């Protein structure tokens, strides 16, 4: 296999607090986590609340400084890069959980989508306008959405805009933190479909964090299970869901009320009873 596009090694984070005289180290939110992500795949990170999955994602995004360990993107240590602010965003973008707070409420969708191009000085005015129009089209939104303010959009539309923003700089990697968790199932299904389509069209590498096992199964090639800051196990999606190696993963899967499994169980019980 070729070199990984993201290499996370021995990453740890504890949220301490700096007092005037004494600093205190908190418990480890992420504890010695290592994994690789290869080009073109989707890695799903699944875990319950407090598992450290979001903290892990933010460390990869360079939003939180790790207490220990390194993150390499395309072979470069992201915390050792002097030009990280300029170069990193062109390789790696993100989509966040809460569509309501993902956008500056005072900017139009057009301003929000133009910002990445602006910041990185991509193209001319007219090519920027074209790029924004193209990205809106790709996520299935009409051009007149550009004039609106975020609160005039539905949750699903906002997540579509978030996807548009994430792909504008043509990054190789997109990281998503529970991007569909606050959406209704019918909307979630459409947004997930868009995710898969976009990933395929643009040949993206994705890291997808969620607490929802069914969603993780649907989007992931490989899955990492986290608990209490530690990586419990990782493997191909099929292995994790059909041949889980740890009790924790087994419990987690068993706890999911899967409607189709429950109904077929009901039916087989009734069938054998009669």
């Amino acid at each position, binding site marked *: 296999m070729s070199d990984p596009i993201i290499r996370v090694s021995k990453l740890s984070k504890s949220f301490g607090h700096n007092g005037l005289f004494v600093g205190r180290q908190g418990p480890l939110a992420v504890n010695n986590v290592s994994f690789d992500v290869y080009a073109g795949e989707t890695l799903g990170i699944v875990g319950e609340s407090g598992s450290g999955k979001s903290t892990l994602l933010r460390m990869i995004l360079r939003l939180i400084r790790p207490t220990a360990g390194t993150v390499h993107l395309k072979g470069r240590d992201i915390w050792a890069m002097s030009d990280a602010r300029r170069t990193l965003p062109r390789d790696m973008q993100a989509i966040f959980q809460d569509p309501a707070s993902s956008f500056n409420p005072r900017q139009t969708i057009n301003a929000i989508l133009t910002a990445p191009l602006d910041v990185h000085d991509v193209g001319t005015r007219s090519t920027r306008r074209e790029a924004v129009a193209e990205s809106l089209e790709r996520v299935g939104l009409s051009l007149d959405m550009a004039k609106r303010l975020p609160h005039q959009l539905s949750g699903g539309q906002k997540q579509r805009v978030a996807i548009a923003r994430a792909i504008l700089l043509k990054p190789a990697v997109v990281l998503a933190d529970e991007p569909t968790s606050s959406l209704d*199932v*019918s909307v979630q*299904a459409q947004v997930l479909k868009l995710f898969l389509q976009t990933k395929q069209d643009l040949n993206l590498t994705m890291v997808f964090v969620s*607490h929802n*096992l069914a969603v993780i199964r649907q989007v992931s090639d490989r899955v990492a299970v986290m608990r209490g800051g530690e990586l419990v196990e990782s493997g191909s999606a099929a292995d994790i869901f059909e041949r889980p190696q740890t009790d924790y993963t087994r419990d987690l899967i068993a706890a999911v009320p899967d409607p189709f499994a*429950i109904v077929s169980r*009901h039916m087989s019980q009734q069938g054998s009873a009669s």
Partner: protein
Amino acid sequence: MTDVSDARPHRAGETPTLAIRDLVVEFPKRHESVRVVDRISLDVWPCEIVGIIGESGSGKTVTALSALRMLPKRSRIFGSIALGGRPLLDLDDRSMRQLRGDRLAFIPQDAMRALNPTLRVGMQVGEPLTLHKHTPWRRALDKATDLLGSVGIREPQTRMRQYPHEFSGGMQQRAMIAMGLALEPELLIADEPTTALDVTVQAQVLRLLKAIRDDKNTAILFITHDLGVVAELCDWVYVMHRGRIVEDGSIRRIFTAPRDDYTRMLLAATPSLSHAANVPPSLAAEVHT
């Protein structure tokens, strides 16, 4: 496989625990009023767990709140709601308050916000007894300890003396359930009580609710957006969409032979663990997001 008929177990001579008939709820807004619940009728029979499933804006929570008479004052309600045959909409506020907690209990989505952060959990669980039954505090607290134990909280004596923030999310929800059960109500109305919980904790709470139904014969009206939870827990389910009930039926019938397009869409949109690589089937009835 051919048998997808879903006759509800016949209940001759019984009165439904909750009977809602032609309920309409409107909220005045600016000049016109918005109809949030549009002529719905539903029954919850004794000892039955009934689900209302719907997405945001379907009117499911408003339906639950109208049965509790907890809607904002400015809302307009038409139709009838009866608890054990007794009409609720004509009751004055005082009788309604007595009914709530006594024969009717509510479990909200966010237990943390429903518990008073400055009072010990034991006090809060015991309070309904002193309010409604004038039980002396001493005995109310003993009963509260039993209740906490019965909802699966370990070392209830110790936990009684703790404050809500010392409880985990799942334990807070259990405490809310214990409080709701204090007066052995006929009907428990639960509004997405497990949505904020982790799946493993959710599974425990669902087991607890089933045990309550089995042991105490409490009827439960369970509001949720999660098809999986409905399948796991409920005997009968009403599907709500835009203020209306689009269909109702047994779990088995709804899942295997849905009659309404919306239900079909909902089923198709639900990601499943058991269907490997289930890219959602073509969403024929694609709702505009």
